[in-house]
């Protein structure tokens, strides 16, 4: 699973169904599913949520996991991604969960190791497991009880993704996934962080520069962190940004009093949204984290049972 682009509504439906099935399964029986199978987590960037939930997911299925991170391995000594991958394979890894700062790195790893690779975030490109857990969160609130998704499941639902779209792999995965199940995606942000070409990334995507207009149309508001580490050279006035795009209680009450407030984390309180909004009644930020484990159980299970390309 490398990208949202390759997912069909049928595959999404199968993943969601499997996630629910695994989540409700007796933990002892569940742990037999991948008992003692070996899964490597290869992390070239820091992570709290994604790493922990992938690890808990793999362990919940009974697999042995090992974590290799760039700062405590031979990667520091200059070992390449290819050689690191081949080393993990030689150690018995049957799948690799990769987070990497370079867009496209999972394709390289899959080509060179011929192992199933789960993309846990590659550069500015994609973070497909995040989009799937976001979808599960949205469905739990807007389509409770529906077990199958189709190309129309989220018809009539508008999701406003707001903030640093340019550098966000979460935004790309969501803007490609959500329209496949019927949602309309509005991208919102200043030109520096949201180029016009973003609307051409796929079908069902529009740009609205005015945050309040975007809010007024949205049933779901997805806020993104300003990625200081990727801003490289952009002149962005944070005070001006906050004045136009920060999600505050007042804005929420005035323009989207019923919308779900989502954020992939980590959140920076007081920047893209206020602490009150993050902790407020419309926020489902921690539910998103919770859904991550079930989704990632399904992805890990599929990777080891369906194989490459699934």
């Amino acid at each position, binding site marked *: 699973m490398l990208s949202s682009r390759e997912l069909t509504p049928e595959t999404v439906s199968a993943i969601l169904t499997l996630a629910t099935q695994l989540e409700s399964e007796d933990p002892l029986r569940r742990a037999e599913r991948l008992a003692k199978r070996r899964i490597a987590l290869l992390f070239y960037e820091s992570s709290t949520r994604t790493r922990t939930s992938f690890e808990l997911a793999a362990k919940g299925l009974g697999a042995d996991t090992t974590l290799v991170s760039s700062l405590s391995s031979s990667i520091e000594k200059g070992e390449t991604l290819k050689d690191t991958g081949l080393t993990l394979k030689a150690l018995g890894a049957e799948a690799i969960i990769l987070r990497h700062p370079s867009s496209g790195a999972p394709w*390289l790893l899959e080509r060179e190791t011929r192992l199933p690779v789960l993309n846990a975030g590659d550069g500015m490109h994609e973070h497909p497991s995040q989009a799937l857990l976001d979808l599960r969160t949205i469905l739990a609130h807007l389509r409770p009880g529906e077990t199958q998704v189709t190309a129309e499941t989220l018809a009539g639902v508008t999701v406003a993704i707001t903030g640093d779209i340019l550098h966000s792999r979460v935004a790309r995965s969501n803007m490609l996934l959500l329209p496949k199940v019927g949602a309309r995606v509005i991208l919102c942000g200043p030109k520096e962080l949201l180029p016009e070409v973003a609307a051409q990334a796929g079908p069902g995507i529009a740009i609205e520069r005015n945050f309040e207009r975007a809010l007024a149309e949205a049933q779901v508001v997805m806020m993104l962190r300003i990625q200081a580490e990727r801003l490289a050279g952009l002149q962005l006035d944070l005070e001006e940004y906050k004045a136009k795009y920060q999600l505050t209680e007042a804005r929420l009450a005035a323009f989207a009093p019923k919308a779900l407030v989502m954020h992939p984390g980590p959140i920076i309180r007081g920047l893209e949204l206020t602490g009150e909004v993050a902790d407020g009644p419309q926020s489902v930020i921690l539910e998103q984290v919770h859904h991550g484990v079930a989704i990632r159980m399904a992805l890990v299970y599929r990777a080891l049972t369906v194989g490459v390309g699934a």
Partner: protein
Amino acid sequence: MSVILIKGGHLIDPAAGVDGLKDVVLKDGRVAEIAEPGKSSLGKGKAGPELQIIDAKGLTVAPGLVDIHVHLREPGQGHKETIATGTAAAAAGGFTSVAAMPNTTPTNDTPEITRWMQAPERGASVRVFPIGAATRAIKGEVLNDYAALKSAGAVAVTDDGHPILKDSIMREVLINATRQGLSVIQHAEDTRLTGGCSMNAGATAFRLGLRGMPQEAEFGLVERDIRLVTELSMNGKGDKNGHRPHLHVAHTSTAQAVAAVRQARRNGLRVTCEVAPHHFLLTEEHVGAYDTNAKMNPPLRSAADRDAMIQGILDGVVDAIATDHAPHAAFEKEVEFERAPNGITGLESALGLSLRWLHQEWKLPLGRVLSLLSAQPAALLGLRGRGTLAVGSFADVVIFDPKAEWVFRAKDSRSKSKNTPFDGWTMQGRVRWTISEGRVIFQAATA
């Protein structure tokens, strides 16, 4: 030296205006005679130790191809390519003259390096014409000694992948090169706009999460250079010796850059440009799943830009096809897309692709295709006696089967590196013999 008689072939020599069945006699490294079939002074001479006869019946005989943009990687980067392996690839591709870029290690700043590159010890199969570095260590600050470089054999100056951004330095480079009668080649890229970028800017780059090089990074610098050339051309009078600056734009990839060159020429300036096969055949979509063999600089552009390259070739604004042959070792390309070095090999696929697409598909006459690959680039850099088979010229010849279709296999390449996006592509026109200064340097295994 022995004599070679090429008999019965169809000679196409655009510079000499020849297009018909001719026998060609090569002697002492030069073209000795062009005659009607069977009518040469050798008559029905018999092959022997002193006479090699090549039966070219059904084949096209043309001036050896001239590639004015290759990276042979020596000195200093012999793990990618050597002058011996790079020129062996050239020979297999039908090229007999290559102009070698100065971004070696060290850079070609001096007559010593320029001579070293041409020394017999390098084992070159074809003639190597070094291009000197315009500024020391291609840093864009201090000009090299152009008179010394020229006397050692340099045919042009450039800073290649490190374009000269400062107006004042570029002006000095143009003035000094003009004084020596040297061309200035610019890799047009305003690197202030392309930091951290690894493909063309646009929707595809956005979708792939890669930073994109904007088109204006190329055409903006082309326009700046043309402004400088306009100033220095003094309304066509040139400098005090009557020399006019010659700006050659390397590997043009954007529609606007071609448009700028077209306008400059209308204004009577000496501005020329080349296009690489990958820029008239491929688009940014070929990056696909982060294929590092689709990573080069300038990058593959949009379909509209690709079409503008084809149009520029067909309508004559483009002066030459040049490969930008840029070998890299496999391990260097087997990395994350953003970290992979720029460039692809090209010497062994340029003729086959040009014949297949420019000639067969887009109906450019064979003579014009060959001119873009020989006569025009030779004239552009003032390579006397190259790019034509007029009597007295160097005996540089390519003989190919224009009808043969074949599949290019990277693994069979003579180049030390195999980084090409054209692996498995169908080519038109198979090189059967390549002759450099009267020596057969390539002969195809007979099919």
